[in-house]
């Protein structure tokens, strides 16, 4: 097992850090109105080849692995970049690459890679339990085509998307469909999310839809695993900066005539945050390597989510507490990190959900063999 980045991977990290860093100062302005991210930055990411990073070269991609995707995701997390790289490229893009027909791949993937097309997965439904089943949208087949009826929400970036990959009920099965988001029968209402982004309520009323290959729950589960791995890397980046920022604050903020770093009650808590961070880093890198080498594995993803969930909660809560009052202001960065981490941790199953997934069948499993 080798946790170190090679030369190209380090160069990728530096390049991504560079381009995202340039726009970091504009975050407040950019996120204050729709779409909540910067199309210029998006174009820059496309020029660097990042928007097709995991796609085959046939579709104008770079043929990179989950490791490279994780590097980008971690950098996004470090500066809370609002650009929808993970949702569009890793979520919808890789789902199309994995389960779409040749024609769909040829049609959609190069446009995603060039930055001209925004596609996202529309699976969430209000109060639906986490999983791969669709409850509130129904697919109907007629005259050789399909139409969808029902509601999806909250769909992150749903308001700005050009194409939606929608999960819908077809009898007892859940199937995936490609929908033109601007077509008749699709009505979108956008609202703000608590982590400085935008999501949409999307009503389908006889909206025209095309099946995504013959994709159903299995393809969606694999997409979730890829997303969870990338979100995990994003959370790692956000936790990394949360710890750095908090430690920096303890070194400079003065009370009672001395810096906060003189108070052991605070430094010990910072030490515990750092410990959590390093354990989360290990499991994030491991899950990323596992995806890159062995493909999606739901148990690995649940192990990751359970650990990231626990540590994200620990670090985000403590980072605000150790800052004191300024930690809950919108002006200061640390609360925005906490907001993002809090939302990320619930995006594809909570910590409790994933612990239960790991617990399922645990009686019949032996000692975890990490090295083989």
């Amino acid at each position, binding site marked *: *097992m*080798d*946790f*170190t*980045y*090679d030369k190209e*991977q380090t160069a990728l990290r530096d390049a991504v850090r560079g381009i995202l860093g340039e726009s970091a100062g504009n975050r407040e302005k950019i996120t204050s109105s729709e779409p909540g991210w910067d199309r210029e930055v998006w174009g820059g990411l496309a020029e660097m080849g990042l928007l097709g990073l995991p796609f085959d070269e046939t579709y104008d991609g770079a043929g990179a692995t989950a*490791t490279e995707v994780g590097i980008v995701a971690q950098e996004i997390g470090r500066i809370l970049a609002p650009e929808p790289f993970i949702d569009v490229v890793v979520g919808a893009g890789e789902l199309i690459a994995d389960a779409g027909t040749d024609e769909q791949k040829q049609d959609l993937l190069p446009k995603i890679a060039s930055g001209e097309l925004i596609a996202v997965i529309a699976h969430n439904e209000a109060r639906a339990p986490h999983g791969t089943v669709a409850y509130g949208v129904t697919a109907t087949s007629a005259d050789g085509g399909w139409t969808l009826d029902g509601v999806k929400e909250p769909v992150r970036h749903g308001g700005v998307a050009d194409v939606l990959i929608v999960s819908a009920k077809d009898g007892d099965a859940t199937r995936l469909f490609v929908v033109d988001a601007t077509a008749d029968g699709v009505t979108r209402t956008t609202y703000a999310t608590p982590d400085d982004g935008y999501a949409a309520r999307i009503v389908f009323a006889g909206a025209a839809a095309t099946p995504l290959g013959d994709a159903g729950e299995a393809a969606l589960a694999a997409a979730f695993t890829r997303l969870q791995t990338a979100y995990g890397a994003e959370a790692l980046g956000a936790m990394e900066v949360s710890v750095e920022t908090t*430690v920096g604050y*303890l*070194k400079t903020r003065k009370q009672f005539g001395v810096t906060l*770093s003189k108070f*052991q009650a605070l*430094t*010990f808590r*910072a*030490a*515990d945050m*750092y*410990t959590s961070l*390093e*354990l*989360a*880093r*290990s*499991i994030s*890198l*491991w899950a*990323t*390597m*596992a995806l*890159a*080498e*062995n493909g999606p594995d739901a148990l690995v993803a649940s*192990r990751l989510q*359970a*650990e990231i969930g*626990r540590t994200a909660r620990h670090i985000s809560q403590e980072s605000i507490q150790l800052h004191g009052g300024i930690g809950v202001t919108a002006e200061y960065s640390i609360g925005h990190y906490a907001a993002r981490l809090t939302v990320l941790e619930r995006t594809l199953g909570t910590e*409790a959900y994933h*612990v*239960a997934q*790991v*617990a*399922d069948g*645990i*009686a019949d499993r*032996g*000692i*975890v063999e*990490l*090295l*083989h």
Partner: protein
Amino acid sequence: MRLALSAEDAQLQQELREFFTTKVPQEIRDTVRSGGELTKEQIIEAQRVLNAGGYAVPNWPVEWGGKGWTPQQRHIWLDEMQTAGVPAPLAFNASMVGPVIATFGSQEQKERFLPATANLDIWWCQGFSEPDAGSDLASLRTTAVRDGDEWVVNGQKTWTTLGQYADWIFCLVRTNPDAPKKQQGISFLLFEMTTPGVTVRPIKLIDGGYEVNEVFFDNVRVPADQLVGEENRGWDYAKFLLGNERDGIGATGSTKLRLQVVKEHASLPLADGSRLIDDPAIAARFASLENQLLALELTALRVAGSSKDGKPDPVSSILKLRGSVLIQEVSELAVDVAGGDVLAGGAGDDSDVPSWAGDSVPTYLNLRKVSIFGGSNEIQRTIIAGTILGL
């Protein structure tokens, strides 16, 4: 970035698995697996089997029996050994005094002590802590005064683990009480436990067992050639040694084995036919511990938290901090799995209560030690905050 083992490491893993599961007596491995106590003879037997196979002291220099392994290969060795229920080589010999002698000792000391230390022909114990020098080890007051070709040692050590079995002691003694810093006047002495003036008094612990001792020195005369390295440099050697000690504490193999055994107990039917493992709250605790152990093992692999340049890698503090807490949490879960049967601690073989249930509280109480020894977890937090975070 690579997940899979290299062909070479995969082969080593197979060789080690084969060795540990076929060469070390089954009775010893079963005792370890069930959490029982090994006799002195069993500990010696196991280490000699390992030494004969060349697997007792892989972290030593190659010329003294080391393997020149990478940190990952050492991890594989430790993990395979521990999950197979093989007792690790006696830490006082293999991880503590051996590397100190091999790194800082004279050629004569190396020849005299290292082969016997590797084979457990000499059983070493550790003379570090004193009644008034625990976490603040550098405040130690045991003195050694030079008299001709000998050092004369007076004072007291405590928490000397398995001192009742030991042939020799490696001991931190104050040789220069006038040094400007207390750390600068300490030396590292080796002497036999049978030397006149050495008295061992066992300390009974809350689990009812005798694991640690007080050791008293009354004008103990030690030949001068048994001082390791340079006079008054003992603190450096002690720090080097403690770095290695912390490394081993973060090992996850034995905790993984313990968790597995507790899980097997939780999977047995209760009197009403139900199983504890089927209780979602209990299953979630197993899942969470299994996951946290995984994260810790990955961290151990990632940072290879070993001594660097004679100084402990501060990241090894993370392994100690989390590793100790996880061992304790597994033992806590074991007590919960035992439930009301914990009362039967003193029951014999004719009891219906299985021995693991009766033993669970003493084990839980005994393991409170792991967050205290080897630098308490508060010391580890101080190291992380100070050395890593710069606070």
